[in-house]
């Protein structure tokens, strides 16, 4: 059962990733990108970590993909595709992809990932949270600072002073 689901998810993820790159329609390309991100969320579900999977869905499919869709809809397509790709660029891209994948695969296989046993119970998010507030507290503080900084920055960006009180009567 898990193998069949894994295979189906792999096909969906890789297939929609290729579709996201190759489709001429930008909107359908970004929908295919959503398929890829959702497939990755499915992998997290298979790995018994629904916490990460739901965050993947909420953040990547729910926000990042919306951002990409929004950008694509507001930009005129002719401005992006000025140069038409030729055959040489295509083959160079394929060769680059193959080299990268082989190199990454070699690194993964060499790292001893085959000897890991998978009998251990899945890490629970409560334990992760506990270790974040005890041993790894500097990382937590750092993340909190970055998040607070980004939220403050977005608030500053969203606050526009220039059109203040122009249209109000009072």
């Amino acid at each position: 059962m898990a193998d069949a689901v894994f295979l189906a998810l792999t096909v969906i993820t890789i297939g929609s990733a290729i579709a996201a790159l190759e489709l001429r329609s930008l909107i359908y390309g970004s929908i295919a990108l959503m398929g890829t991100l959702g497939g990755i969320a499915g992998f997290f579900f298979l790995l018994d970590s629904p916490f990460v999977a739901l965050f993947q869905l909420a953040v990547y499919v729910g926000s990042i993909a919306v951002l990409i869709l929004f950008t694509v809809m507001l930009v005129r397509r002719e401005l992006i595709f000025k140069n038409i790709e030729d055959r040489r660029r295509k083959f160079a891209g394929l060769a680059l992809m193959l080299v990268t994948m082989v190199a990454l695969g070699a690194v993964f296989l060499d790292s001893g990932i085959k000897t890991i046993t998978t009998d251990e119970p899945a890490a629970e998010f409560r334990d992760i949270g506990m270790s974040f507030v005890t041993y790894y507290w500097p990382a937590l503080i750092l993340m909190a600072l970055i998040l607070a900084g980004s939220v403050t920055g977005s608030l500053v960006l969203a606050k526009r002073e220039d059109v203040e009180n122009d249209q109000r009567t009072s």
Partner: protein
Amino acid sequence: MSVIAPKFKLSEFVKSLLDNIFWVLLLMTIVGIPAVQIALFYIEMPVIHGELLTPFLALTWLADPTRLLPVIHALMATDFFRIAAFPGFGFAALLAAGTIFIERKMLAKLQLRVGPFYCGKIEGILQLMGDGLKLISKEIIIPAKADKPLFWAAPVLFVGAAAAFVALIPVAPGWVVADVDMGLLAVFAVIGFFPIITILSAWSANSKFPFIGGIRALFQMVSFEIPLILSLLGVVIVTGTLNLSEISASQSFFPWIVFLPVGAIVFFITMLAELERIPFDLPEAESEIVAGWLTEFSGMMYGLVQLGTYLKLYAFAALFVVLFLGGWNGPMVVPPFPEELLVGVEMGPVKVGPFPGLPLFDQAMLNGTFWFVIKTVGVIFFILLPRGVFPRIRIDMLLSLGWTKLIGLAFVNIFIALGLLYAGVLGPGGLQ
């Protein structure tokens, strides 16, 4: 005299009914019964208690309540019943349909109008059924230059996402379709799908007004998702769980709105914005952009989007109840079942009962559902109320409200929750 159907004649209406009955009986006699008998030649019926199960025997058993009631009881324990009928789609759609009618009638009363009046004898009570029939029988018109696959898929996806949201809501103890450990996170994930579906349907219509409405909806939903998520973190901090059933059960003594009123207010305002309701109904601003992103939908596609919208409204109101108003908790008002029903009664030589399969629902479930529905209807009333009172606000006011004020208030709420925990008011040693 009514002018709705001026050529209506009762005799012709009765004649048409009788005609239909005649044709049904005729076709059943000539085609139906022989078809069933031919089919029975080829189907092997099972043998139960040494008796061959014939259709006649099956119908006899179904007419016997002592055999039928356990079947119904077993049916109610299945997942199908939960998804389709009680805590899932059917229950929510019933409440949503009621909401549509109440909204129209209440809005009319607020504005000194009459509202739906003619359809049905009493206060236009059949108006909803008439609207549904009209929507089903209308032609679906697709714009010529629309992106057809996306345009067809959008209403279905919208209803699907709303139904997924409904499936996460616990209605009574143990009565929830999907009791997920990370229920609240799943809610956030499902909410994230609505802006995508909205903007895709708006784009695929290839028309001016839907696109403007879709862009507005995207702005509004994405910017109000952040205060929505932040305002619910306070409840997660004080309960220490993300499971909606556990959050609901943790409020048996007091609802969290007592301790976290700021979070409840922020959540209510963001809820209005996520539902695109007045005063935040910019995506559907009918006086500016026809009907916003719904402009090009016609017939049952529009009906599906409306159904999804009201399912979403029910789900948000129910989420407010579960998180802040105590969910199914409330004083026990359902009387206990009579003893004779459970153990049976002896009348001289005749002993009746106990009836297998009775009672169909236990007392706690009935009581929980009662309080849940009362509270949800109250919250829905408060969601509908601003529509009769407030004007629509400008989009820059909406965005500045979301990004500056509500996010700040949501952080205040989080600090209140942390303060309550660290001061020992809640948590171990405190009230709970």
